[in-house]
């Protein structure tokens, strides 16, 4: 028989390979070992990845602040630091019990989220946290700059950004996109500095207090518009709605009012 001429112990081992029991056992063992490998890698490396993401966000905030004209000198004058405050979005005041340290734990509790109905939910979020961490820069007891984290539904997924407003709470000082899933080369261009550079100086509301901000379809033509991106209509709508929602009455509106009344 031809089989005899083969390496005998290979033949020996090849034989039981066909058995159903061995097939199942091998499949099980391989999956178990691989599962253990993957899980341990994920668990061991997670703290480093989380730290990375946090560092990245800090870097973007720093870049955003640096990118605003005159900010670097302003920062130096005020001692060089932004103060971090957790605010209650409902009241627009600093939260009493929630600190930046326990914000994440607080937001894990569903009771600290507010459901949005369809009319309110411009940004397509479904629900909104009751607390948010914002960054303030004070100058002579007045707030001269706020950095507000915002998020909304884009075309490919959620867009996270940080928007900076000047002390009048109506002029955009800059924007930094911290995370997005838009199409590379089209909507994905929202992460480019050239597009983000069209934000500074744009006004949010007109004299009557109506929200006018919009991402234009082409180049910006009014004081309330920022440049559009060709081929990214839904991303543009997402950005418009995101800014309108978060800087409107259901978002940071109460906070902005409080700052304008100099209660902050």
């Amino acid at each position, binding site marked *: 028989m031809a089989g005899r001429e083969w*390496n005998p112990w*290979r033949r020996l*081992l*090849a034989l039981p*390979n*066909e058995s159903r029991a*061995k*097939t199942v056992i*091998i*499949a099980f063992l*391989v*999956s178990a070992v*691989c*599962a253990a*490998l*993957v899980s341990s*890698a*994920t668990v061991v*490396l997670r703290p*480093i*990845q989380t730290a*990375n*993401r946090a560092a*990245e966000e800090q870097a973007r905030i720093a870049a955003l602040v640096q990118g605003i004209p005159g900010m670097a000198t302003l920062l130096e004058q005020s001692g060089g630091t932004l103060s971090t405050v957790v605010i209650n979005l409902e009241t627009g005041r600093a939260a009493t019990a929630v600190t930046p340290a326990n914000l994440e734990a607080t937001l894990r509790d569903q009771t600290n989220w507010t459901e949005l109905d369809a009319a309110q939910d411009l940004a397509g979020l479904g629900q909104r946290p009751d607390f948010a961490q914002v960054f303030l820069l004070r100058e002579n007891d007045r707030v001269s700059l706020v950095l507000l984290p915002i998020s909304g539904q884009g075309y490919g997924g959620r867009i996270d950004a940080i928007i900076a407003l000047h002390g009048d709470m109506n002029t955009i000082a800059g924007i930094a996109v911290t995370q997005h899933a838009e199409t590379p080369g089209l909507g994905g261009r929202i992460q480019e500095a050239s597009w983000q550079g069209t934000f500074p100086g744009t006004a949010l509301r007109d004299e009557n207090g109506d929200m006018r901000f919009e991402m234009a379809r082409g180049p910006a033509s009014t004081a309330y518009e920022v440049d559009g991106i060709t081929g990214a209509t839904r991303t543009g709508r997402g950005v418009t709605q995101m800014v309108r929602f978060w800087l409107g009455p259901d978002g940071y509106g109460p906070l902005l009012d409080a700052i304008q009344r100099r209660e902050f």
Partner: protein
Amino acid sequence: MPQVPSYWSTLTTPLIRQNPVTLQILGICSALAVTTSLVTALTMSVSLTVVLTLAAGLVSVIRRHIPDTIRLIVQIVIVASLVIVIDQILQAYFAEISRALSVYVGLITTNCLVLGRTEAYARHHPPLPAMVDAFGNGLGYSLILIVIGGLRELLGKGQLLGAQVLPLADAGGWFTPLSLMLLAPSAFFLLGLLVWAVRSLYPAQIEQPEYAPAQLKSPAE
């Protein structure tokens, strides 16, 4: 026992003569996608070489006990697990590069090159030669990626590893970047030129034409 070729030739043959990308045209999807800059090409090369070598070693260790009926699934599970581990490591220690590579690290799993080597070589050879072969193939793939990545970055941006090499015309130099080089089609052109160069060097690799232009036939049916 089949005659075992020397480790040296196992290692060096896939570099150019039996290069997996230019000869077998394997794994070109990622070769096209990640070569816009040299850094991403290098990272992808290292990741793929590590995954390939480890996968070949593991498959080779248990090669006599992999039931034939489920061998492909076993191989893919091993490769996929290694890829996830590598991806996690990249995300932890090279976050910047990991973002640039986006989904392509995950796609190493489906890179035909990896499955091709484990299926064709590691399954029939002891661990050491299998790993040497895998490492050689990984290097061959890396070589192509680095050449294409280097050329695309140099011609597309005038940079190498992010450092300006050719002075740009915008900045008072003489070099006008070829934006085409940053788009996917240019990788096809460069890869085609490379294949042509290698096959001019080794005419034995030139394939017979699969299809000759029709000599005026009678109408079919």
